[in-house]
């Protein structure tokens, strides 16, 4: 398919349908609304269903039911709506239900929520955070693959900028390899055989003795979470890190600006590089540790009061100082495009941080 100039929300919706998503439910909320609009437009044409849910709680519940029948299903909202969905997200991990949850986050950014969540107990969700539309088209489809591969919810992390900026994108299907058969789904065909299926966060089968009760199930799930985290290769983009004294870590749309500004500073001759985590979970800790062996200092740029910096510091593990250079900079609406998404402003910010750090370290 040739590349088309399209709005981010439309490309994301088309990528979901291309991935085989046949059920979507959502509750309108800026800047997620247009994803819902495009799914409502696209799904009927491919025999799918899109429901304008009465709340975020119902949206994720409907998607849970649809996914339990084996359909590829998704829901989404903004961080605020995902706050309401946290109970379901944590329990979907325990119920081993594959589901894609799209977060078109508002200006405050939701790194903590995405990678730690607000749900209860031991659970993990892979998080994919694209930098631009072409990458979003691929990662949306990868999200469905990962969900089916690990029978787990997967978060796709976008924002206002990704949803509303128009870019050229080629929505074509991606192939990520074979998947396990969905032999666990409820199709209604198994009643009266003694082997009817159960999709439940409390137990894996109808026969509780299989796993010594609820405690046994929780242990099984905890092991599953660890296996999944080990089994997913962290994705990361780096630039100029091999000879960088100063490295800026950033993700998503913010990283798009950081990447560009670091390139400009390189042209000025500054020994500076960048790291962009693409999977926020599993976090590319090994790559950041490797970079920290060489760099004299790292900085984290994110549009909040400092969230991802926790994971960067854990990865750096004291090898180098890690400074926070982000800020909670929002436009007048509070959920639009940050005033910091400005090359001149970011140039000054990163250059100043570099100068300060290098004088301190040397």
């Amino acid at each position, binding site marked *: 398919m040739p590349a088309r100039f399209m709005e981010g929300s439309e490309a994301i919706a088309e990528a979901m349908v291309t991935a085989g998503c*046949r*059920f979507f*439910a959502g509750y309108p909320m800026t800047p997620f609304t247009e994803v819902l609009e495009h799914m409502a437009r696209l799904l009927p044409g491919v025999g799918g*269903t899109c*429901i304008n*849910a*009465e*709340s975020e*709680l*119902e*949206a994720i*519940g*409907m*998607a*849970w*039911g*649809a*996914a*339990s*029948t*084996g*359909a590829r*299903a998704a829901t989404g909202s903004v961080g605020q709506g995902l706050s309401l969905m946290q*109970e*379901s997200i944590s*329990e979907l991990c325990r*119920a081993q239900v594959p589901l894609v949850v799209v977060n078109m986050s508002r200006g405050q950014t939701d790194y903590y929520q995405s990678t730690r969540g607000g749900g209860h107990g031991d659970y993990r969700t892979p998080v994919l955070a694209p930098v631009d539309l072409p990458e979003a088209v691929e990662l949306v489809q990868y999200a469905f693959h990962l969900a089916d591969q690990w029978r787990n919810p997967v978060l796709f992390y976008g924002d206002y900028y990704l949803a509303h900026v128009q870019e050229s994108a080629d929505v074509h299907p991606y192939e990520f390899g074979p998947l396990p058969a969905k032999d666990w789904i*409820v*199709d*209604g*065909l*198994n*009643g*009266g*055989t*003694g082997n*009817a*299926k*159960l*999709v*439940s*966060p*409390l*137990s894996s089968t*109808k*026969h*509780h003795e299989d796993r010594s009760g609820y405690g046994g199930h929780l242990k099984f799930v905890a092991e599953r979470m660890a296996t999944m985290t080990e089994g997913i290769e962290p994705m990361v983009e780096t630039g100029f890190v091999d000879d960088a004294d100063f490295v800026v870590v950033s993700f998503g749309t913010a990283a798009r600006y950081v990447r560009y500004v670091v390139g400009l500073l390189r042209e000025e001759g500054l020994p500076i590089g960048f790291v962009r985590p693409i999977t926020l979970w599993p976090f590319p800790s090994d790559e950041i540790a490797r970079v920290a062996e060489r760099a004299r200092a790292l900085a984290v740029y994110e549009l909040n009061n400092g969230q991802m910096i926790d994971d960067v510091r854990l990865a750096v593990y004291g090898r180098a100082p890690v400074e926070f250079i982000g800020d909670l900079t929002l436009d007048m609406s509070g959920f639009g495009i940050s005033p910091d998404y400005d090359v001149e402003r970011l140039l000054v910010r990163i250059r100043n941080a570099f100068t300060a750090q290098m004088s301190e370290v040397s």
Partner: protein
Amino acid sequence: MSITILPTNGPPTVPAQLVEDFTPSLLNDEMHHLCPGCGHPVAMRAAAEMMGELELATRAIGVVGIGCYTGFASSLDVDVVQALHGRAPSLATGVKRMRPDSFVFSLQGDGDMVNEGLQEIIHTAARGEAVTAILLNNGVFGETGGHMTATTVLGQRTKNTLDGRDAALHGYPVPIANLIAQLDGAAFVGRSAVNNAGNVARTRRMFRRAFELQMAGAGFTFVEVLTMCPTGWFIETSEAPDYLGDKMAGTYELGVLKDPAHPAA
């Protein structure tokens, strides 16, 4: 075979024999944690038998809520999705939309449906989702040990209404079936009970009607069943059926509230 039973003070001379097995065919043998005198299994048995009679076993997908009855998710021998507290109607919506030829039912208690998930059941009914929602209403949170729900009747003593539910302090009970009957999306609404043989037979008839209407594509169907909970009502097991008849059925009138064959005048 006939068995002669003679009164005797001595030990039995003939070992116990199985005369007939009344276990519903769609029930897995499994340990349960329900109390003596509980009405839930009577209602569940009626539903399981009706699914068997209507040959729905290989088309049925249940969605079960969280409460004492959650064990039915395992003991019912049909495909089941376990929902979170209050969320069964939404899961049932997703299941039915993806499997429109299946028979889809949800199973909730009054705490699950009328407290935690009131909005979900109302909207699912209003959308006319082609599922059968079953409410097991005993007017109390049995699983937590006897606390007030939205359907606790006035005067009923619970652990957090020690002097009885008082409208001035705790508000009025929610007649959920009557609310749902007002919605255009609801095709069939009935309220029954399991406190005596006549009402059990009524429950079976309502299940039959609701299940058949779902499979005929009539839309949303709803069966509320009043069930006994002597443990949560803090009364003797033997008193529970009469308590249901006196206290609950006085608030919640039994009968068919809506049926497509009898449009409201």
